[in-house]
């Protein structure tokens, strides 16, 4: 397993932990402590743990003089970025258009909705990117001739 696979696996683990912790906290606040939904949503603060996935890239730094990236690695990274891009846009556009149908053309969008758009976008990009990296390395990266 190379540096990029380790990084992708670490990202997926951090994302899963952040999401699970957030959902559990919201559930506990709502159903165990009886908070209102609005207050219980504070549990989503744990989603910010996603930032941990970018905290320490030195964990994966290769110390030898081997080439850190070759043409296959670059091809796989490019494919992963394209996968993340195609996953991000439909969701981002849907989330941007949804308030029009929910609140109407003259409605007001809660500030938290805008924040959640950013987090959802980031979540989708990082998740799809990491999955695509692991999948491409898993099946050998296919052809370099595109």
């Amino acid at each position: 397993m190379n540096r990029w696979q380790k990084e992708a696996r670490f990202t997926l683990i951090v994302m899963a932990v952040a999401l699970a912790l957030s959902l559990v906290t919201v559930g506990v606040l709502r159903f165990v402590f009886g908070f209102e939904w609005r207050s219980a949503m504070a549990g989503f603060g744990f989603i910010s743990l996603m930032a941990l996935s970018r905290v320490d890239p030195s964990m994966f730094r290769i110390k030898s003089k081997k080439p850190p990236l070759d043409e296959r690695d670059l091809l796989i990274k490019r494919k992963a970025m394209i996968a993340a891009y195609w996953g991000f846009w439909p969701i981002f556009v849907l989330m941007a258009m949804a308030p029009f149908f929910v609140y109407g053309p003259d409605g007001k969008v809660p500030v938290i909705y805008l924040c959640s758009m950013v987090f959802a976008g980031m979540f989708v990009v990082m998740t799809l990117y990491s999955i695509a990296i692991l999948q491409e390395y898993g099946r050998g990266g296919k052809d370099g001739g595109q």
Partner: protein
Amino acid sequence: MAASEIKNHVRRLRFENGRMTQQQLADKAGVTRQTIIAVEAGKYCPSLALAFRIANALGVRIENVFQYQGEQG
């Protein structure tokens, strides 16, 4: 181009070349060992430049390493 259309003899040539290891070939060709493994397994079709570097590292001509298996005109 699908990787399966290109047949390669990297593994055989490595052994004929003093049992060169995948790592040694990777170092000579300037790629990672994973890439050599993928090329040998036919899962990755290298760029023309890398194909030449692999052939040079093995001390043979490129056509002795890689052969096109698709339809011949």
